[in-house]
């Protein structure tokens, strides 16, 4: 059986809408990060040169997903890095701890301003988890 893709782009007039899938919630969060960086650069990830610790909080799993993506955007922009390795250490309804690995970014293809709460969904189904998130570009 062919598994559906981990992420895909949806139509949205002015911004970037993504559909993310994951067998588990941590995998969903990892795929969301991969999806976002896939939009930002075609750069092939080399050997990771840096590791960064990430901790974000939220009031529910949806806000946690937005906080996770936005923390990665913050790090990417301020450190001038892109990330390709994501390890989730703990994920509850209100807190996520992770380590991300990556390296210096070359010129980015796309500047993402932020992940938004618009049309934000995180749902569990028989095949695993699915999320939609709109990124402001």
């Amino acid at each position, binding site marked *: 059986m062919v598994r559906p893709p981990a992420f895909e*782009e*949806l*139509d*949205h*007039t*002015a*911004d*970037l*809408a993504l559909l993310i899938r994951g067998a588990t919630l941590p995998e969903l969060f990892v795929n969301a990060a991969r999806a976002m960086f896939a939009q930002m650069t075609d750069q092939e990830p080399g050997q990771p040169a840096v590791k960064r610790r990430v901790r974000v909080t*939220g*009031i529910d799993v*949806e*806000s946690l997903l*937005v*906080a996770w993506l*936005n923390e990665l955007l*913050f790090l990417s*922009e*301020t450190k*001038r890095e892109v990330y390709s390795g994501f390890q989730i250490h703990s994920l509850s309804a209100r807190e996520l701890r992770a380590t991300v690995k990556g390296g210096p*970014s*070359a*010129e*980015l*293809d*796309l*500047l993402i*301003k*932020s*992940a*938004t*709460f*618009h*049309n*934000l969904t995180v749902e569990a189904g028989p095949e695993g988890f699915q999320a939609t998130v*709109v990124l*402001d*570009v």
Partner: protein
Amino acid sequence: MVTMSTFRRVDECVWEIPREHQADMRVPARIFASEPLLEAALGDKSVEQLINTACLPGVVRYALAMPDIHQGYGPPIGGVVAMSLKDGVLSPGAVGYDINCGVRLVRSSLAADQVRPLMADLVDAIYSRVPSGVGRGGDISLSRKEMDDLLERGSAWAVARGYGTQEDLQHTEENGQMEAARPSAVSRKAKERGTDQLGTLGAGNHFIELGEVKEVYDADVAGAFGLFPGQLVVWVHSGSRGLGHQVCDDYVQSLQSAVQKYSIKLPDRELVCAPFYSDEGQQYLAAMAGAANFAWANRQVLMVRVQRVLRELLAPRFGRFDLALVYDIAHNIAKVEEHVVDGKPMRVVVHRKGATRSLGPGRPELPEAYRAAGQPVLVPGDMGTGSYVLVGTSAAADKSFSSTCHGAGRVMSRHAVKRQVRGEDVQRSLELKGIFVRGPWKGLAEEAPDAYKDIDSVVDVVDRAGLARRVARVVPMGVIKG
């Protein structure tokens, strides 16, 4: 589901959805549009988003949308919504992530024909000398103290450091400085993001454009603005960069718990808000104003950078020439203004997200040179078609909380347009029309002219609706994108 029959046509270009359409609407929703533009608006979720803004606490008179309406997140792009201060809310989503994204127009004393043969060189020089700031910083790095100072003072900070003149401040909305700004309300993360972004263009629909005044519709007002047919002019379109994005993100996150605290029911989480006079509301206002000031300082520095490049390349050939700021406007912002509600003056907070302030003649907010004419309204179009200069009207005060459109408005998603065009082809087809474009290929594809509505029809609506009047049309000669 909204269809054409949901609307009541109240005027030639004004369509209303009555409050009774949906139980939680507090006021009617109105769209300024022609019939074709209204039908186009029904092609995405923008009208539903407009209806959602009519549900916000304290909203007064109408939730409005301009003819360049398209789907955003929270309110539609092109949305204008005003809340009473007493029982209304402030919503970061109704301002947007690019706080004070806006545009400025610079006039020159040169004719476009004089510089046309040099356009490729001019565009290349600006592209290489004005940093986009995408993936790397600019060349101005701010200390913490400088950042705090800049967040308070906006354009004045830049002028004090040799970027431009006092006259530039008078020709900027709010004189380039919102007094509500407090650096302490802007997070450490936002300041860190903005540290080396001053004087950078950004990406997406940000651009610098060299254009020609192709047509003048009102010679008197054009003269007051210093515009003449065949003139070389320069547009700079940019915003508050990562600092503004972070401010919006910070407050959209932190206000998620405020809506529970204040028992506010939201149709869309991106419309998260807090009562205007709450601590949370006042903190956001102070941070938003700081980010707005950063954007004004940014456009001030960008403009001066472009001016320096043009002088350096053109002065040897043409000698001394004028390059002066016509005006600078914001189109993502929230401002406390006085408007008439139920026949009485009332202070309200007007949220404009993809909409421009439009003040008529006689307003004290305007510099003396423009007081008789009205406020310049700057409406950039897409790369291939052109832009407009309009003038504000007194009528806009009652019709739209002194607001008008901001641009052409998108019709096609970035995803869809990238499937149809390639950046290289966009560049080539524009060059065939005599328009030189420099920018990253993917960005050029996403900003292809086909992705945008027809600016002529958008401007036609605001002119017929009395929100702003046509003064001049400008066509692009050279475009630089981040």
